[in-house]
């Protein structure tokens, strides 16, 4: 009896033991491992829903819209409820049944579409343009399980400056890894200004936190929305482009391959940057992006190639202006220095003989520059190889001070450097001491190993206009409300040429258009003194490229520009009239030489 009664303690002990174990377990779960379970509960029951910010607009220098946003629609399917007559549905969306099946397969494939749930709407057709959507809206909503989500896409009221503005495209795995900002549905700038100013344009996402139930349905805001944020729109950009000038330049460049770059000399602001052939930027938007991109990328004319900053070409005779300045600065020549036009040295056309320095600019005399540059290199010690090497080194310093041989630093990615040949390069090509001036003389007239990008050619015009300095060319002047400062020393570049030497060269450049025998005599503009220089960029693969570099007006210049037209022959024929029309358009806002304009527009070089 007593023995049995003592068993009550066994029972107390056993029951108590389990209570303690349970309390320990609860202590472990609710206190020690609390964070783990809070996290797990949150991933299950709280959904973060993004609200996309509006991407910043881009305006031209006069406040005209270049890029804005437009509403587009994502067509979403909730697979659990989606039941449809496949053929009719495909016909409505204008896709074929195999495409339809493929898309459904991809939607349901969890390795591609990680967050797949049959209860949550999935994107079936992305970024349908609103006019297309409007047409099928009524019929679309007759299907069960179909919903739409509003998104914004880029839209371009004027189809201009496609290469400069760039385009946006869906983020890829690399973007997602590199930048925490992005989520898989994001779009990001992938070329042009859209890419360069991505961080300014994209804004900040807004996040909404919803509490959802076991079936994925939202029941309320999480913590009454305490964690929610509203999206902050991206900054608007004010660009330096002049939309009218840009549009006019693109018109002039129709049917041609090449580029036009126009810069305001006093600020370095790029007024126009034309890449030809160009395309309508609206093509690379929304649902048709993929197909259109493929088509443009495959085009033999390399439509997507941003020639203005990437095409490296021999500048031709436009560098004669620079050669003149160097010779004046180092004192091997003056205004009246003259050389005979000896066509045995290098080919030339017929003109009066001999010429002074400004006249040599006017007539673009090749033998003159053969001799002048020889003088720059040898400094009177003809035939001395050591002096030639020193002379080229010295010359190279001057040339590099013109911003050549390196990218200028424009606010676009992918700008190319061009090439300034130097002693090392010649040694590599010909072998040390196995070359002399006769081997390399073609740099004196801007051919051979010498190459510039069109923007560098335009910048040469800026330097001439400014009499010796330039500001880093740029495309954006304001971000949001903040005006960008380009006047500081980071953007100001001074060449090694003293400003006193420019007037002589300017004379020659003015005569190019205004004096009989000038290489661009047809391109005179009434009432405006244009200083210009023609060039012919030799092309071993076909017709020569037509080049013209100019600024205007001569006093207090407002615009400097370079025109480069591939396979169009001499600079005076095509490039110079185009430049002249551009100057007229910019300075007078209205072009009166309609005949010239028409003849230029109608020229086709491909």
């Amino acid at each position, binding site marked *: 009896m007593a023995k049995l009664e003592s068993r*009550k303690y*066994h029972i107390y002990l056993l029951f*108590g033991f389990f209570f303690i174990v349970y309390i320990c377990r*609860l202590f472990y*779960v*609710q206190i020690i491992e*609390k964070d783990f379970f*809070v996290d797990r*509960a949150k991933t299950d029951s709280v959904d973060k829903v993004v609200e996309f910010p509006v991407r910043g607009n881009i305006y031209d220098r006069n406040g005209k819209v270049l890029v804005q946003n437009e509403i587009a629609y994502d067509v979403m399917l909730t697979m659990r409820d989606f039941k449809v007559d496949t053929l009719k549905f495909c016909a409505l969306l204008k896709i074929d049944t195999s495409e339809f099946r493929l898309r459904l397969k991809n939607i349901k494939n969890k390795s591609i579409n990680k967050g797949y749930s049959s209860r949550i709407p999935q994107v079936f057709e992305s970024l349908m343009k609103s006019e297309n959507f409007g047409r099928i809206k009524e019929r679309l909503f007759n299907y069960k399980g179909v919903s739409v989500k509003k998104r914004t896409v880029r839209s371009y009221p004027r189809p201009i400056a496609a290469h400069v503005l760039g385009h946006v495209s869906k983020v890829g795995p690399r973007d997602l890894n590199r930048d925490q900002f992005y989520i898989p549905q994001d779009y990001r700038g992938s070329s042009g200004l859209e890419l360069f100013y991505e961080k300014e344009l994209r804004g900040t996402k807004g996040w909404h936190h919803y*509490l959802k139930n076991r079936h994925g349905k939202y029941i309320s805001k999480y913590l009454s929305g305490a964690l929610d944020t509203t999206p902050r729109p991206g900054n608007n950009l004010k660009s330096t482009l002049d939309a009218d000038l840009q549009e006019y330049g693109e018109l002039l460049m129709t049917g041609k391959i090449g580029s036009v770059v126009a810069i305001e000399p006093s600020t370095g602001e790029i007024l126009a940057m034309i890449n030809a052939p160009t395309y309508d930027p609206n093509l690379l938007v929304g649902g048709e992006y993929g197909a259109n991109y493929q088509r443009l990328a495959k085009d033999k004319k390399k439509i997507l190639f941003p020639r203005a900053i990437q095409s490296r070409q021999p500048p031709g005779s436009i560098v004669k202006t620079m050669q003149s300045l160097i010779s004046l600065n180092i004192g091997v020549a003056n205004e009246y220095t003259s050389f005979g036009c000896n066509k045995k040295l290098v080919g030339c056309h017929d003109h009066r003989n001999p010429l002074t320095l400004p006249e040599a600019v006017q007539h673009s005399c090749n033998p003159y520059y053969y001799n002048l540059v020889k003088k720059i290199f040898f400094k009177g010690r003809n035939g001395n190889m050591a002096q030639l090497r020193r002379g080229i080194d010295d010359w190279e310093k001057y040339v590099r001070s013109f911003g050549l041989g390196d990218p200028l630093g424009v606010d676009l990615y992918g700008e190319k450097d061009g090439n300034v040949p130097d002693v090392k390069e010649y040694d590599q090509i010909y072998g040390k001491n196995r070359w002399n001036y006769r081997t390399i003389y073609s740099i004196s007239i801007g051919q051979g190993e010498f190459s510039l990008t069109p923007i560098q050619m335009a910048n040469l015009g800026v330097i001439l206009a400014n009499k010796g300095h330039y500001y880093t060319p740029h495309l954006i002047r304001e971000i949001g409300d903040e005006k960008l400062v380009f006047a500081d020393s980071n953007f100001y570049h001074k060449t090694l040429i003293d400003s006193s030497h420019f007037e002589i060269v300017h004379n020659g450049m003015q005569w190019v258009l205004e004096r009989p025998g000038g290489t661009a005599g047809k391109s005179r503009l009434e009432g405006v003194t244009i200083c210009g220089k023609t060039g012919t960029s030799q092309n071993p693969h076909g017709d020569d490229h037509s080049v013209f570099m100019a600024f205007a007006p001569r006093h207090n210049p407002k615009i400097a520009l370079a025109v480069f037209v591939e396979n169009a022959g001499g600079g005076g024929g095509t490039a110079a009239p185009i430049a002249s029309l551009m100057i007229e358009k910019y300075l007078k806002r209205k072009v009166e030489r309609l005949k010239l304009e028409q003849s230029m527009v109608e020229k086709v070089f491909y």
Partner: protein
Amino acid sequence: MKTRGNILLNVDWVLIGVYLALCLIGVLNIYAADFNPLSSDFFNLENRSGKQALWIGASLVIGITIMSFDSKFFKSVSPIIFVVVCLSQVVVILFAEEVNGARAWLKIGPFKLQPAEFSKFATALFLSSYLGTFLNEKNTDEATIEEIGKGMRRFFKGKKVFSLSDIDILKQVVPIVIVFIPVILIMLQNDTGTALVFGAFFFVFYREGVIGRVFIIGLLAIVLAIITLMFDKHVAFTALGVLAILVYSSFIKSTSMALFSIGIMIFLLVCKAIFGWSTSLNTYMLWGWISINTVILIIVPDLWKRIERGVIIGGLILALGYVGIIGKAYGVLQPHQKERIEILLGKKHDKTVSFQTDQSLNAIGSGGISGKGFLQGTHTKGKWVPEQSTDYIFCTVGEEWGFIGTTTVLILFLILIFRLIQKAERQRSKMSRVYGYCVASVLFIHLLINIGMTIQIMPVIGIPLPFFSYGGSSLFGFTALLFMFVKFDSQRLDIL
């Protein structure tokens, strides 16, 4: 004989107070678990909270009704109640519709009753009144560890351990039969969970000395069977071998070695329960335990010498045979039966079940120290845990009231159960004492399984949390169970 005093003075208000507290906390949590912002009226009978409140009221009526009868009356009608409840279960088995795989509901007009919930009460009452008839107690049970050791030695030496005449049919066999009748009936209703609860009567039998050596050996056989099914046959056999050597050798001189060895196993199991070690660790744990014991065998001097090897070999052969038979018997089962056993043993996870238990643990764990606040539980609001107002009501407590809430509930239950045992021991009549133990044990097992399931210590067995879970039948059953004891206790002085 003392005159009967005012019943209000004689009832144990602690029991009633804790009961009411649990019911109230329960209905509050049901309100939260079933919360519908469109119809948030607590007493709306469309809501589960409203219905539960109604049932709490009805339970009080049941309680008061029970209190108003004389306890002698219940003693005399207990066989009738038992038979009626058993018969109603037969009716359920034969005629009821299947709901969630179980034929357990009896439809009476608009109400549905689950007779199995009342059979706990009926069985407890009948069992205690039956055992209460054996007034002059003789200790029939010698199932102490020392006794078993002696018995084993005698057995392996070829001597007689026990004879059938040792078994007292009336005192030992009949009580077990009384418990097994409802167990079988409930198993036939496909309600394994409720049937398992009847294991609670083991504690009563232990306290009353009903079970003897035979049953201890039976228990060992069950444990071994479970080990065999959970682990590889060889592991089970090795474990058994080491156990046999160790326990046997320790019995000779000291029990401390045996307790130490068993203690290690219990420690490992407790750690596993608290830290939620995965089931794949089971085999490693067993091997760990085997190696620790082997080391003990080797390093403790003389231990090996003291062992009678013939006995060990005999024991191992016997165990091997048993393990083999279990393995064969298991192989005969249908695949779906095997699966159910494996899920029950925690070897396999049912996908929906593991979703349920994971969400349950997420809800409880994310509550932290003080919880997310009443009606603020994100998992509760999102109805993430299926069956949250019934079997998983503890999740609501854990999520909205935190560790403070869960321990408060556990401590209330602890007070209730310990108070029941304390009161049971004070009873003058054997019947009242046995009944008190029945109530305490049934509540304990429910608590152990239900809460253990929500915090992933126990396998998923769907039984309600007493006084808490939504549902009239279980509340009525538990109320009757408890108030009957309150009644007995209030009259304890009346009985010699």
